[in-house]
Every structure is written in structure tokens, then in C-alpha cells.
């Protein structure tokens, strides 16, 4: 609850701070301060400290898993703000408002990790989506940004419609919005077809939000068109948050779907991995490649939906963290590049060794090479399915696509290290930025080597 309330309040406060604070570069520090506050409060809540005592009437339910995820998301956002905050300023004149929108999204993330009612899920998703439409279109003069915003908005609201239809059908079948299965006076309510259809609709809408194939079409276009800073945010923290919601929802509801659930999810995983990885290969722009890669990574994250056991819950947190940190790092570098095609990276290792080295670490982490956090992420995802012992074929398919992913991630490494060229930066890079990147890379490696620093906390 702390997160939801403080992020909303701080958002409002920050909105008004733009009246008194005129210096554009100060906003990111304010935002960072807010996030630190948020982080502290959230951690405090993990240990039982409630700032506000709100009776949520069981609409929200705070558990370790959600709170832990909040901490991760907030920390990642903090890193994101510290690394890319300067680039937010470059997007438009309403810098402060953009930060405010990020805070509102944080509020939505808080809801996604704790909802216990379909209504809260719906509100949470909308509270995340609406600021994102804006952020996508925030580069107003840029036609790509416009196009992305329009596509995102139209498809997003369409998927909202689908989701609401599902919720309505579900309501019709069960008579309530709570995640817990309602008990009737005649014993537990049996599953009926209407409920299953409703869940199918919700599944589709959620799959759309996490860009699982074949509902992924918006992702490349939107991520490509949006200003890179916000792509970074959307593709990482927000997506992870929606995944958490997805998992929470279907942790409760998947049993109602029977075997069909595993079939559908497995097919979606395969399709997602296929589309994401295969299409990424063709790309010429690193940014668009990252968009497809985020689809591919979503395919891996969906393993958590497939297996739904302790390992997968721990794993999804780890995956969110590893994937978010790496992608944020890559985007932070990408934003600085003059040319975001693969050729633009040629020879970066010579002109900017620090950027190149850290970028390599991030990419290796995305590939899932041991010694990086990304390895443990993939490890957990694979382990969670292997544990089921019934779907090894799916794991093998995933592994093969993971190998395909090497192709496009390593293209960047090849360009940076092995190809001749003069990679140019669009803007000066400050020592602080370099330092931040190094810290981030170090964090990824530390988690990679000593994951127990994190694993000790992961038990739900």
C-alpha cells in the first residue's frame, strides 16, 4: 500500500514542484529522491511497517512476492532515472510532467503486484497504460512517435475491450470479481464454459500487454517509435510488472482452465520465441532489434506461467531484475549513439571502451551466459519447467531459440569489438554516466557470480 499511495502523492507533489523549480535538470534528482523514498517505504512494508492503515476490503492483498517485486521494480526505475534521466529532458518541454507520469506508472505497478480483484487489475493496467500512451507520443514533432502512440493507443484500448468482455463473462459465471474462487452454499463452484471463455478473453488481453505472440504486433512498432528513453522503461519495468499481474491472475485462475491452459501457453511460448527471435535477426536497427528481443524475452518469462511453481515465482522476479537491468543499460548506451543501426556501433570498443565493455556485459546477460545475472534468470525459467518433467520438448525449443538469440545480440558485440569503424556518440558522455554503467554491469556480474545474495530473499 505504501508504494501505491506514496507514488501517487509524490506524483502530485512533483507536478506542483514544477511551479517552484524551474531548472530542468533538477527534476530527475527530485524523481530519484522520490524513488528512494518509495524504495525505503516499500522495503519497510516488506518488514511489516505500514505507513497507512487502509482497509482494502480484500481488493488488494500484499504479500512478500508482490512487495519484493515492487522493490525490484522501484530499484530498477531508480537506476533507470539515474542513467537516463538526462535523456528524458531532451524529449520535450514538459520534463516534469513526464517524470510525474512515471510516478503514476509506479502506482499502477504497485497495484499490479497486489491486486486481488479483477477490478483492481483493470484499473492497474489502465493506470499503467494511459501514461504510457502519452510517453510514447511525447516526442510530438516526430512522426514515428505519433504513429507509435496512435497504434499503441488504438490497439491498447481494443485489448482493454477484450479484457473487459472477459471480465464480464467471468462475472457472469462466478458472480464476483475476486481472484479467490467463490464458495457457494453447495460447495465449490464448478467450472463452466462461460468462465473458461471469459478467461480466454482475459488471457488474450494480458498476452497482448506482455507482447506474447500472436498479440505482439504493437510491440516492435511502438518500442521503435517511442522515444528511446521511454522504450527502455516500457520494455523493462512496465512489462515485468504486467507479467507479475499476469502470473498472479492465472495462478488463481489457471486451474479452472484444465489442460488447455498448458497447451495454449505452450503454443504461445513457442510462437513468441519464434517470432521474437527470428524476426530480430533481420533487423538493421539495434533499437528495433531490442524491441523484438523483448518479445523473445517475454517468451522466456512466460515459462513462469507455464510451470507455476515456487521456482517459477522466484525465477520471474530474478528474470525481471536481470532483464530490466541489462536492457536499461543497453538503452542508456543506445540513446547516446548517433546511429542506432548495427553499423553505428562499429568500433565502439576503441572510441568508448567503457561503453563497449559494459554493453557487452549487458548483452551477454541478455543471452544468458553464466557469470551474468541473465544466466540465473534463464536458469530459473528452464528449471521451473524441467521440474514439471512433462514438457521437456518446450524447454528444448526454448533453448534452441536462445541460441538463435545469440545471433543478434552478438552482432552488436561483433560490431563494437571486431569491426572497423568510428562509432560516434550523439551527445557527450559524462564520467558519472560511465560510472553508473560500470556499477550496473558490476551488479549484473555480482548477481551472476553470487546469486545467493538475492536468492536468500527469494522465498514465497
Amino acid at each position: 500500500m505504501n508504494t501505491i499511495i506514496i507514488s501517487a502523492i509524490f506524483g502530485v507533489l512533483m507536478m506542483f514542484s514544477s511551479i517552484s523549480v524551474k531548472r530542468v535538470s533538477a527534476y530527475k534528482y527530485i524523481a530519484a529522491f522520490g524513488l528512494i523514498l518509495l524504495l525505503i517505504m516499500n522495503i519497510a512494508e516488506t518488514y511489516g511497517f505500514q505507513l497507512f492503515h487502509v482497509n482494502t476490503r480484500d481488493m488488494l492483498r500484499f504479500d512478500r512476492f508482490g512487495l519484493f517485486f515492487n522493490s525490484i521494480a522501484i530499484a530498477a526505475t531508480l537506476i533507470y532515472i539515474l542513467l537516463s534521466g538526462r535523456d528524458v529532458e531532451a524529449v520535450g518541454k514538459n520534463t516534469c510532467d513526464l517524470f510525474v507520469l512515471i510516478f503514476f506508472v509506479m502506482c499502477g505497478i504497485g497495484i499490479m503486484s497486489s491486486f486481488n480483484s479483477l477490478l483492481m487489475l483493470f484499473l492497474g493496467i489502465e493506470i499503467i497504460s494511459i501514461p504510457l500512451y502519452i510517453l510514447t507520443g511525447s516526442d510530438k514533432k516526430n512522426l514515428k512517435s505519433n504513429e507509435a502512440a496512435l497504434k499503441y493507443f488504438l490497439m491498447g484500448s481494443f485489448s482493454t475491450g477484450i479484457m473487459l468482455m472477459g471480465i464480464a463473462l467471468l462475472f457472469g459465471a462466478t458472480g464476483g470479481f475476486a481472484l479467490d474462487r467463490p464458495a457457494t452454499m453447495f460447495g465449490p463452484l464448478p467450472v463452466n464454459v462461460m468462465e473458461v471463455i471469459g478467461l480466454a478473453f482475459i488471457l488474450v488481453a494480458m498476452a497482448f500487454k506482455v507482447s506474447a505472440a500472436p498479440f505482439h504486433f504493437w510491440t516492435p512498432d511502438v518500442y521503435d517509435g517511442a522515444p528511446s528513453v521511454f522504450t527502455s522503461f516500457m520494455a523493462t519495468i512496465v512489462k515485468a510488472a504486467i507479467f507479475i499481474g499476469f502470473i498472479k491472475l492465472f495462478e488463481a485462475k489457471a486451474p479452472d482452465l484444465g489442460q488447455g491452459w498448458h497447451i495454449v501457453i505452450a503454443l504461445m511460448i513457442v510462437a513468441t520465441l519464434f517470432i521474437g527471435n527470428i524476426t530480430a535477426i533481420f533487423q538493421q536497427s539495434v533499437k528495433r532489434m531490442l524491441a523484438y528481443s523483448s518479445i523473445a524475452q517475454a517468451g522466456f518469462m512466460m515459462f513462469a506461467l507455464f510451470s507455476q511453481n515456487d521456482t517459477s515465482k522466484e525465477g520471474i522476479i530474478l528474470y525481471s531484475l536481470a532483464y530490466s537491468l541489462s536492457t536499461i543499460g543497453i538503452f542508456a548506451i543506445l540513446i547516446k549513439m548517433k546511429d542506432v543501426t548495427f553499423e553505428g556501433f562499429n568500433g565502439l570498443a576503441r572510441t568508448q571502451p567503457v561503453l563497449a565493455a559494459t554493453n557487452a556485459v549487458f548483452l551477454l546477460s541478455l543471452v544468458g551466459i553464466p557469470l551474468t545475472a541473465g544466466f540465473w534468470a534463464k536458469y530459473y525459467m528452464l528449471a521451473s519447467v524441467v521440474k514439471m518433467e512433462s514438457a521437456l520438448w518446450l524447454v528444448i525449443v526454448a533453448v534452441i531459440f536462445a541460441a538463435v538469440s545469440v545471433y543478434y545480440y552478438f552482432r552488436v558485440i561483433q560490431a563494437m569489438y571486431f569491426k572497423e569503424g568510428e562509432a560516434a556518440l550523439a551527445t557527450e558522455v559524462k564520467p558519472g554516466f560511465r560510472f553508473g554503467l560500470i556499477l550496473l554491469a558490476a551488479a549484473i556480474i555480482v548477481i551472476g557470480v553470487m546469486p545467493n545474495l538475492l536468492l536468500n530473499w527469494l522465498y514465497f
Partner: protein
Amino acid sequence: MNNLILLVPLLPFIGFLVNGLFRKSLSKTMTGVIGSGVILAAFAISIYLFLQVRSGGAIPTSVYFDFINIDKLNVQFAFQVDQLSSLFLLIITGIGFLIHLYSTAYMHEEKPEHFARYFAYLNLFVFSMLLLVMGANFVIMFIGWEGVGLCSYLLIGFWFKNTNYNYAAKKAFVMNRIGDLGFLLAIFWIIAKLGTSNYADVFASVKSFTPAELTGITMLLFVGAMGKSAQIPLYTWLPDAMAGPTPVSALIHAATMVTAGIYMIARSNIMYTIAPFTSHFVAIIGLATAIFAATIALKQNDIKKVLAYSTVSQLGYMFLGLGVGAYTGAVFHVMTHAFFKALLFLGAGSVIHAMHHEQDIRNMGGLKKYMPITHITFLLGCLAIAGVPPFSGFFSKDEILVGAYNENPLYYYIGLAGALMTAFYMFRLYALTFLGKFRGTHEQQHHLHESPSAITFPLIVLAILSVFGGLLGIPALFAENAHSLEKWLDPIFAGSHEYTTAHHLEHSTEWMMMGVSTLLIVVIIVFAWRSFSRKERFEENKGFGKVLENKWYVDELYDNIIVKPLNGLAGFFKDVFEKNIVDGAVNGVGRLVQYSSRQVRLLQNGQVGSYILVMVLSLIVIVLLFREQTVIVSALRKIF
């Protein structure tokens, strides 16, 4: 005693190391002294060992260390000096020393470092050969076996600038390796059966082999012998090996290395004796080789080639002897052959040396007056090899032929034909080289001279041995119990005697055979002498002669049925299979991915309408999936 025995192979090895490592700093004289000296020393020790054996029987096996010892397989580094190996020791070190001595003069034109390299190789060869004969088990024998192959390779390709020589060297090595594989498999078989390859253990437990196993093992061993001792079908390397320096040909390709196969079979005679199939096979191969090589030798014009084919032919005789159970005869022939063939080769070397590396006998002639010592010794050698009594070759060959007659008279007749051919081509060679008029250039004539004493001394020694060597094995026909070699080797072949019933020929038959063969040989010699001593012109060979001159086209045959197809297959693998199929599959996957990438991205056409259309269609599918899940689950179960 152990150390003394160890010293025999070690001395040549030290010579090899010294000559090899310090080849740049040593003078030629020093090199020669070291190279020959170590062999002489080894020879001296060999004599001592021989005497020891003579006085006290076989010296107990000297074990030095465990070469390989795991509980299923125990191979000791051990030497065994008994009657057979001590005899070979004498031949190897004795003739080896003479040839070393000879080489100091023969190779004197080489640069010091190459000179030293040459001696290093020679020493290494002697070392390997000693390992071969001294080893107390098959593995040590195999080590020496391959070692001599290596030295042969190195020495054939001694003049490494010449590509053809290199090819010859390679051919020798590879063909030897084919045989070695057989040998190796035989060793594995023995080890797999017994866990050891010590001669003593193996021969003691020979009865534990089934007949099939024994046949298999002996056949495989014989494959090894075929390679090393240049028997059909693996003989073609030996004539080509003449590319090496002539002393090398004398040492390796006449006197010692090529007899390794005979040594091996003689050593394991017990196994052959109780494997009759293999014995017959050995005899037939030996006989075929003897006659086949002899026919080729009839028409060769290169002095060394004639000798080379003669060697192949003589080796065939030895295998004939082994095959028919005349083990003593075979070993006897090894010895006498070592004497006279070394003599002939060295004589030929002397000629070549004098002729400035001219080897074509058509360009020689009349050397008698220029090189008297060479001439006399060569003539003695020819008489010995032709089997004219009482030269050494007569006795040894006769013993083999008698053995063959015992086995099957047909063998005898064919063998006799071979002997006649031997006489013919040897005296053709002799006549063309030494008799008549000189047919070479004036410059060559101008330089003709007798060779230095370092060359002639070995010739004289070997000539004496060739003449009198036969006395070691005087057949019972002439004097009872005069066959000292048979008595000497009796412990080695005692095991075999248990299985064979010695049937002696009637003395009258034997007298007649001997008389007829001697007569025929003399006739042939006279005929050859007459027809070639005044020959001035050489016509192109036609018809059958041409086939013989071209060695029955065997090289070409091998080239066409083995080398070329293999090369073609390799080329096919390299250029087609590897590139297109194995690698092609890998790259094909890559290309498939790229291709599908290009196709799949077309789905992403940028139109919201179609995106949503796909979404709706997928929604329909998912709803159907959930509704019909029972049907679909069972269908999917079947697939996965």
C-alpha cells in the same frame, strides 16, 4: 649382464644422440669415428653375448622397467638374448659396422652436418633393429619394428631436396604401416587373450588358443611381415627405396630390416607350426614373390633396382622356407643373404661411386680393369647368390628348396625356376657392368678408379663371408652333424619339432636334385655371360619384355585401384561432402533462419488493421482451443 645387454642398443642410441645433436660442431672424422665406433663396440658386446649363449644357453630375460602395466595388460621393457637373437645381433652389428665403415668413405662428399645426420640415422636404425630382435615381447619388437620403418623413411629421403626420393620414402613408410597395422592387431589379439605379450608366456600357452584364433593371429602377424619384408602385395616400396644412399640400401633394404619379418615368424615358429593354413599361405606368398620379383629383375637396367628385386625374390625364398617349416633354412638364408646381398649392394655402391652416380648398367661395362677389387668381390657375390656350390647361397637355398620339396614337389620346381632366373639376371648384371667395353661418357671413363680402402675393406670381408658362410650349414648329405646352425637354433625351433615329423629325403634323390640344379645354374650363367658380355646395343623392349621392364605394371595398378580412388574419395569428402552436406547442414540451418526471418517480418506490415485481425483470429482459435480442449489434448498427446 643386464647392463651389458642394455648397452648393446644403448650404444648406437648414444651415437645417434651425439651425432644428431652436435652435428654442426663435429668434424666428419669425428662423426665417422663415433658412428662406426659405437657399432663396433656393440658388435664386440654382441660377440661376448654370443659366446655367453654358446657356453651357457639362453641368457635369462633382462627386465628393465614396466613399460605399460595395468592389470589387464602388462608390457615390460625387457630384452631377451637367446640363440636366435644373438645370431641376429651378430649380423646386425657386424654387417652394420662394415656398412658404417663403408659409409665414411661413400658419403664423404656430403656437408658435415648432413654427414652427421646420415650417421645419426644409421645409428638410430641399428638401435631400432636391435630393439626389434632383442625385445622379449611382441610390443618391444613392434617398437623396433616401427623404428626401423622410420629410419628407413628418413634414410630413403635422405636427400630431401629431391621430391621423388621423398615420395619413395613416404611410400615405404606407408606400406610398412599397412603391415604394421596387421602386426598391431595381432598383438592386441594376443594381449586380449593372454594379458601379456612376452614370448615365453605366449609360446608356452599357445595351446590355449583356438585354431581359428591362432590362424587369425598368425595371418595378421604375417601381414606385418609382408609389409616389412616386402612380400606380395606390399613389396613395391622396396625397389623404390633404392632412392636412398647405397650403403643404406645394403644395410636396411638387403641385410637387416627386411629380414625382420623372417625373424618375427621364426621367433613365433611354434604358432605357425600349429596353424597349417597360415603356413601354407606363407609358403605360397613367399614362392609367388620369389618368382614374380625374379621375372621383373630380368629386365631391369638400374643396377640397384636389379639388386632390389633380387632382394624381394630372395626374401620370398626365405618365406617359402618358413612356410614349409624349414625354419633353420630360412634363418640360414637370412644370414647368407645378408652377407652376399650386402656385398653386392656395397659393390654396386662402389661402382656408382666410381661412375659419379650413374646407375644405368647400359652405360657401364668393362669396369673389370678399372676396379679389380670391386669386380672380384662382386663376382663372388654373384656366384653366391646364384647358388653355385660351394658358395654360401648354395647351401642356404638348397636347404630351403629341399624343405619345399618335402612339403610339395611343385614348390621345389617353381623355386628352382626362380633360382635359375636369379642366376640369369645376376650374371646379366655382372656381365653388363664389368665385362665388355665401357659404354659411358669419356668424362666418366676418365674418372674411373678403384674405391678407397674404407670401401674395399668391407667388400673383402663380406666376400670372404659370402664364400665361406655356407660352411655353417653343411647339409647332412655331406657330413652328419655338420650343420652347426641347426644345432645352434635347435632350442628355438624345438617346440615346432614336436608337431612336425621330419621326413628326410633319400640321399640319392637329394644328390640328383643338387646335381641337376647346379648344372642348370651353371648353364644359365654361361649363357648369360655369353650373351651380355659383348653387348653394345640395347633394343627397346617389346611385348612381354616391356611388361617385365615396367614391373608388370603393378605400380600403375595400385595407383589406379587404390591410390586414385582413395584420393578421389578424400577429394569428394573434402570438397563435396564436408562442404555441402555436413557443413552445409549447419549453414543450411543458419540460412533457413535468415530466410524465415525475412519472411516472418512481413507479418509486421505496419497496418493496425491487420494486427488486430490477427489478434481476433487468434482469439477465436484460443477460445476454440479451450472449448475443445479434450479433443485437442488427445490429439496433441499423440504428437508429443
